[in-house]
């Protein structure tokens, strides 16, 4: 029977799942994803995790608990850095330890370190280390790694066409590898939702933000639809280099979207207590006010957020855009 690798449907799942999935499948493992976020999963996460963590980290705990009985291994890489001289949030760095010491009776945890800050070739070393748990065949591991990279590339191409990452993952599961046209979401307005993937694509903790916007006949674009080159270019406009990879993605995409004539407004989504987000929000708002009078809304989410408050703000935001248009 093939080994079952559990992947929590949280945090970097929304960024790198196809890479991991392609790699493990090529090695002959089964990949099990935790269920979609529900009240039960979130409650378990909040109960098990440390109090100081942000909402998405607490949610990750819940997804790990959900996998407890379903998998032989839980894959939870220690993500230090995914590009040169730039880092991932320190909470991700300590994630495997936080999980190990707070949740009892877990299956084996694969917590390989991924650190590409000095050398981007370190990625293959990390994958080799994981592959060796299952096979001694180096060629096979290399092949699996290549397969993972291919899948990841396809995934990113679908995102750039306008699929949201979780939709791309779904499409790839169904067998759609790449297509040459973008998904059609006709809308009267286009709203850029700038926020971390694990916050905005999780329908439960984002209070179904994206679908609510679509119901209000808005087309939604997100940072994941932009290429790394655009993100890098735009974020270089800041006087200093940003060393948080995810903060850079927020700034770069917001700077890109605020210039675009086809965007009607920007919604920034941050989780309460997120250090980097508290800066990106402030920077985005300041630069936006300086350059252009574009509608901007900041939403902060945590486990106490009431849905009513989010709906009120969203409705008012959309009303404002429509009212402005009618006045022009």
């Amino acid at each position, binding site marked *: 029977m093939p080994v079952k690798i559990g992947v929590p449907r949280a945090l970097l799942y929304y960024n790198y799942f196809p890479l991991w999935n392609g790699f493990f499948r090529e090695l002959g493992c089964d990949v099990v994803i935790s*269920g979609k976020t*529900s*009240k*039960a*999963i979130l409650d378990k996460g909040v109960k098990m995790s440390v109090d100081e963590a942000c909402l998405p980290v607490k949610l990750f705990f819940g997804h790990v608990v959900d996998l407890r009985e379903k998998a032989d291994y839980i894959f939870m890489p220690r993500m230090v850095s995914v590009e040169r001289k730039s880092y991932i949030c320190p909470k991700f760095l300590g994630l495997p330890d936080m999980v190990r010491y707070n949740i009892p009776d877990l299956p084996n945890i694969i917590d390989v370190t991924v650190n590409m800050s000095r050398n981007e070739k370190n990625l293959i070393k990390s994958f080799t280390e994981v592959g060796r748990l299952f096979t001694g065949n180096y060629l096979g591991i290399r092949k699996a790694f290549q397969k993972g990279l291919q899948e990841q590339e396809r995934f990113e191409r679908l995102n750039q066409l306008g699929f949201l990452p979780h939709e791309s993952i779904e499409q790839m599961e169904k067998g759609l590898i790449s297509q040459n046209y973008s998904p059609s979401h006709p809308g009267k307005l286009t709203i850029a939702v700038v926020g971390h993937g694990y916050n905005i694509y999780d329908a*439960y903790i984002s209070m*179904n933000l994206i679908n609510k916007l679509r119901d209000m006949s808005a087309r939604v674009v997100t940072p994941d639809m932009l290429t790394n080159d655009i993100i890098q270019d735009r974020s270089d406009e800041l006087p200093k280099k940003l060393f948080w990879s995810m903060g850079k993605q927020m700034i770069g995409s917001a700077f890109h979207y605020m210039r675009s004539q086809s965007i009607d407004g920007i919604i920034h989504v941050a989780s*309460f207590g997120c250090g980097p987000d508290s800066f990106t929000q402030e920077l985005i*708002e*300041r630069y936006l*006010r300086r350059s252009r*009078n574009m*509608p*901007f809304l900041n939403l*902060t989410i*945590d486990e*106490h*957020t009431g*849905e*009513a*408050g989010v*709906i*009120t*703000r969203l*409705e*008012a935001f959309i*009303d*404002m855009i429509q*009212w*402005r248009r009618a*006045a022009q």
Partner: protein
Amino acid sequence: MRGYLGVDVGSVSTNVVLIDEQERVLETLYIRTQGQPVKAIQKGLEFIRDKISTDVEIGGLGTTGSGRHLSSVILGADSVKNEITAHAVAASKLVPGVQTVLEIGGQDSKIIILRNGVVADFAMNTVCAAGTGSFLDQQAARLNLPIEEFGPTALKSTTPVRIAGRCSVFAESDMIHKQQMGHNLSDILAGLCEAMVRNYLNNVGKGKEILGPVIFQGGVAANVGIKRAFEKSLGLEVIIPEHFNVMGAVGAAVLAKEEVTKTGTTKFKGFKVADADFKAASFECSDCPNLCEVIEMSEAEKIIARWNDKCGKWSNAVAHRKKIS
């Protein structure tokens, strides 16, 4: 004659207004919700029914406020709008040329920036309700001072004390400390007003361009101490519109009128609603791990609406209703 009703069901107060076809305000009512929105709505409707003459025909009804969905189910509303839009609409109708709207209600506070009669920006307080009407109510009760006297007492102050206004819990302990030091009541109250205004401008008003004319509305605008603190801090005259405490309801009525002009008919169920027997019940649906707390509203033993379920299975079961939250 044809009139339009606006109903604003907030955390602290329930307001009902009647406007005429020229959008002039004919009747206003401000009552406390007291945790029973359904009763408050019915009481409000009864009041308007008794006030108006028989030749007034209700052409439409709009609801707003945190209880807008509940009230729309009970009354049958033509427009259901969020309170930010409703307040902005009312402000721009009643005070033409307004550029900034400061609004402090029972549990929330907001700022709306208008330019050329159109909303340009807005902000609302986050999870924290420090510095809103409920806190002032609570402090007045602690000092055994009727809330109506709060403002005039604060105005008597000559040297307001400095109170930490970041958090209402800390503000309270700071106030107690100042009172035990021997400061007089009016200085403490004036200090509290200034702390609240400081907190408002630093949180809700952060980064907003506040230009005159500035109007101040919502229940807290009745407090002249807060008005003076705003004027002192902004260096601008702050106007309090005549119907400051029912502006949301005025906006709802105006929006209802606009909606009815488009649709041609009203969904308002009529004044008989005031005497109908409404019952609200809730249950936890255990069909999936989300465990939604579904609310069920029935009128004369007949279920008229359900809401608060994520999947829509319960709300859709009540056929003609669309999912409302």
